[in-house]
């Protein structure tokens, strides 16, 4: 049971198939599995349902899979940054399911934790709740949302060890920990792949049980969408 793989292409070997559901971690372009997305593009896998908070930008992140028309459907909370997405969606070439961001995060956590459904107040009385079951608790109305799982989850962490234990860094954590739990098969890429014992057991964010394969990222771009600075004196 060796989890470390030499690169993204080998780490995805044998686990991809047309029509599959993929989860990809990240918020915007922060904390996305760059190497694994590139390898998924290279695989030519078709008709993917992609669960990811955002859809990348035209030439980066999941935008790379939109360019090649590998994605059939997106489940996201916000896709405003991507022009190619807009074009494909308006031309009805792409299916889209919007989820409130917190509902989406919780659905993924639920999927990983064996919870098939939960109630939330988010979206009650809006389009999002139409056609879904409602239920009252203590006089308030809530809507039933279901757990989400993926055939393969692609996650990005900062450090990881050879058993698959992961530690994330700052806001690059975002959706990655839940997606690691909700993949039937989870592949992680990390900036530093270390020996077992180098990570503090109290600080591990994702225990290795959730990670089937792990690689060390190469040539990360870590692109910034909104470079916002202050100047001295402000």
């Amino acid at each position, binding site marked *: 049971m060796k989890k470390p793989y030499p690169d993204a292409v080998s780490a995805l070997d044998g686990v991809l198939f047309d029509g599959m559901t993929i989860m990809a971690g990240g918020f915007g372009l922060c904390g996305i599995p760059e190497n694994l997305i590139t390898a998924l593009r290279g695989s030519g896998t078709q008709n993917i349902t992609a669960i990811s*908070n955002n859809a990348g930008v035209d030439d980066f992140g999941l935008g790379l899979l939109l360019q090649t028309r590998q994605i059939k459907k997106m489940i996201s909370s916000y896709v405003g940054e991507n022009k190619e997405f807009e074009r494909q969606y308006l031309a009805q070439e792409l299916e889209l399911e919007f989820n*409130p961001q917190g509902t989406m995060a919780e659905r993924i956590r639920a999927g990983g934790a064996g919870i098939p459904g939960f109630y939330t107040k988010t979206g009650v009385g809006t389009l999002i709740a139409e056609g879904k079951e409602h239920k009252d608790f203590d006089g308030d109305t809530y809507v039933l949302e279901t757990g989400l799982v993926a055939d393969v989850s692609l996650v990005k962490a900062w450090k990881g060890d050879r058993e698959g234990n992961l530690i994330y860094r700052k806001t690059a954590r975002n959706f990655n920990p*839940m997606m690691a739990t909700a993949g039937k098969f989870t592949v992680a890429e990390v900036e530093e792949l270390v020996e077992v014992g180098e990570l503090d057991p109290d600080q591990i964010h994702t225990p290795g049980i959730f990670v089937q394969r792990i690689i060390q990222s190469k040539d990360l771009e870590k692109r910034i969408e909104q470079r916002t600075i202050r100047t001295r004196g402000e």
Partner: protein
Amino acid sequence: MAWTREDMARRAALELQDGFYVNLGIGIPTLVANFIPDGISVTLQSENGMLGMGPFPYEEDIDPDLINAGKQTITELDSTSYFSSADSFGMIRGGHIALSILGAMQVAENGDLANWMIPGKMVKGMGGAMDLVAGVKKVVIIMDHNARDGSAKFLKECTLPLTGVRVVDMIISDVGVFTIDDEGATLVELAPDVTVEEVQERTEANFKVAL
């Protein structure tokens, strides 16, 4: 003289109380952070997974792993903690955030809010807005009182798809401040040189006046 965006942000900052945990939306609400009153300590939550958001970085401190919910580069503070999106929205949905300040396309007199989609136009998504208005204890809206074409944005009923039902507690617009509760809407403050009559003309919603 109607309020400027800065005036609105400054007025919204008066809703902050010492020790509050607050979530600020994208746009004008972000400006509120510049007007936190002296002597008051407020902690800013960013729903992508951070409590204790600092100011924008100096050029040399930019870190691609550290952004806010608007995808802008930011900095951390001594008190900062990071967490997952699930934990972040657990915090929001669970009612642990005292105040959220957001923008709006339309608000109805019963507190309904529409701020995420215009049918027929490309929809970018609701992001965390539906979760915030459903979960945060107090929701304050900052918005221009009227749309660019002059039409009313504070309405009897929203015509756009809703973000939340009966969720808005306060509106701060360029003409003044309204509170909304189970009894309906009330105009409680006017911007300088703005009259009640002018506000009534520019508003479709019914509201009481208690200045």
